[in-house]
């Protein structure tokens, strides 16, 4: 019996020939990414030694630039940590700052076949790079940084095969919402993505799905490595790596086919991601106060391109705030050069600096009492983006941009007939 992708990576990194679901494995960690939250007073523990500072990356993202005195203090602690241990890959406020997972993508830090951990649930974003990347807790990070190790309990794996290609106005956010709606949570399971439709999905489009793997509670969400990925990696990171593609006789708990050509724009209703989405038509006309595009799931250059195409020559509806937050300053600069920022700002949106921003309810677009938001970000949980009485609908960047123009939840097809993928 062969191994699937996650089994292959965890076996390699634990020194085992083969591992099977249910086993606890201790693996060597290739990369450990600390974010600014790690340096908040309630989370930080003073590390006395590091196993290997070369394997550490520090990124300020949730509250960067500092949003208040607590986060400013955390950044001071973080900079001292970087200096004390001589951390080379440090993404402070400046040209190379951004959401950790987007910075990881910009620089191809998550190499195929490697293990990457970070104390942020959306670290599974790195799965788009064929990396066993996952969110861990703050103590796991300290353990990984000081010992070089992490433990995982291997779960069973569900394989998703993509076929065909996406129709006009539909994005991989809709694909994810379809999976979350049709198949629900994947607690104690891994999800693996591949299939003949993969070649029609850009790396950014794949990252949206991998990032959202956290929202179905998957342990790992990982993609096969293909030529599109290898070209992307080699253009950004010269370090050697060994891809981990599944054996032909790999074992899966279940194998499901997702026909991309059958996807349609979906909207997740407030408070819960899984088993909670409807076709956009079912909620079309719902009044909104705010529309948000950003986060590690939807702050990519593709998202800027989509938003610009929908908003081109149009205006955000009166009484609606459209806030667009790039995933990294690199994405921001590329979006500037491509003219997307001009188009989006001309339409009346506020384009912010790169940060987690409103997605985590930290800053730059927090919701007030009873407000209604449609968001292209990661979560629609009660209170997630501010006041607990606010209601958060979640959709694709195209649907959010269309809704911002209409002033109510609207179908992207009302404004564009373009194929995005």
């Amino acid at each position, binding site marked *: 019996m062969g191994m699937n992708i996650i089994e292959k990576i965890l076996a390699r990194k634990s020194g085992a020939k083969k591992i099977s679901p249910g086993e606890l494995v201790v693996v060597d960690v290739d990369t450990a990414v600390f974010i600014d939250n790690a340096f908040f*007073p309630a989370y930080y523990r003073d590390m*006395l030694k590091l196993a290997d500072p070369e394997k550490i990356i520090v990124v300020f993202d949730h509250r960067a630039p500092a949003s*208040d005195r607590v986060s400013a203090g955390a950044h001071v602690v973080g900079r001292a940590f970087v200096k004390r241990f001589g951390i080379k890959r440090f993404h402070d406020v400046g040209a190379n700052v951004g959401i950790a997972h987007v910075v990881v993508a910009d620089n191809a830090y998550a190499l195929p076949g490697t293990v990457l951990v970070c104390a942020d*649930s959306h670290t599974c974003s790195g799965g788009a790079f064929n990396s066993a990347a996952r969110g*861990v807790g703050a*103590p796991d990070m300290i*353990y990984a940084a000081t010992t070089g190790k992490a433990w995982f309990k291997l779960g069973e794996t569900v394989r998703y095969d993509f076929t065909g290609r996406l129709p006009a106005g539909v994005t991989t956010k809709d694909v994810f919402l379809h999976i979350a709606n049709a198949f629900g949570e994947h607690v104690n399971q891994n999800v693996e993505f591949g299939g003949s439709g993969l070649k029609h999905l850009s790396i950014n489009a794949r990252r949206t799905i991998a990032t959202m793997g956290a929202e179905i509670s998957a342990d790992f969400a990982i993609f096969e490595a293909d030529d599109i990925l290898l070209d992307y990696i080699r253009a950004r990171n010269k370090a050697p790596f060994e891809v981990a593609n599944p054996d032909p006789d790999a074992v899966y708990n279940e194998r499901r086919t997702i026909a991309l050509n059958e996807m349609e724009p979906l909207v997740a209703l407030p408070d819960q991601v899984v088993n909670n989405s409807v076709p956009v038509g079912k909620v079309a006309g719902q009044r909104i106060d705010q529309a948000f595009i950003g986060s590690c799931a939807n702050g990519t250059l593709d998202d800027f391109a989509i938003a610009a195409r929908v908003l081109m020559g149009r205006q955000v509806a009166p009484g609606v705030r459209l806030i667009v937050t790039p995933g990294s300053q690199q994405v921001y600069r590329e979006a500037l050069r491509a003219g997307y920022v001009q188009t989006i700002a001309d339409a009346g949106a506020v384009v912010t600096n790169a940060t987690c921003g409103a997605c985590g309810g930290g800053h730059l677009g927090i919701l007030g009492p009873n407000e209604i938001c449609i968001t292209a970000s990661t*979560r629609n949980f009660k209170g997630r983006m501010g006041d607990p009485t606010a209601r958060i609908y979640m959709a694709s960047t195209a649907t959010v941009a269309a809704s911002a123009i209409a002033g109510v939840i609207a179908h992207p097809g009302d404004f564009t007939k373009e194929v995005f993928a």
Partner: protein
Amino acid sequence: MSTIISGRVWKFGDNINTDLMLPGDVHAGTEEEQAKAVFAANRPGWINEMARGDIIVGGRNYGTGSSRPAARSLRNIGIACLIADSINSLFFRNSVNFGLVALECPGVSEAFEELQIAEVSLTDFTVKNRATGKVLQALVVPPNMLVLMQGGGIYPVLEREGLIAPKVKSAPAPARH
């Protein structure tokens, strides 16, 4: 270490997320501020009704969401044990590392009414409803993880091994704005 935990049950449903246990507006706050905010959005006032030693019974996908230390907040308010039909693996890691006894026990949410007494054996990992007599089998927690859950988590271990400094009582946090 006690091998039997018994306590009064508070029931929560499926897909209980971390943001409900540790809301974003106290994410940068102190442990004390975080503890007071547990379930403030979905069950306001519960924090004043519950008592140390109580047990939470959840449904499927308990703890879905963020990496934030929501398990630590449950430990800090004195939850003796969390039992759920299934638990998000990141929440479970935080339970191990922050010292919250957490068990996955399929069927548990159906087997209890609120305020019934649950008896949990950490020897054979059974969960008994004292009112109905029904006994369920939870998933076994490996011994090394159970030691951490019952012994205050991983930080005391890392301190003993000289990898992190002992925790100093932090100065009061500055004003938020």
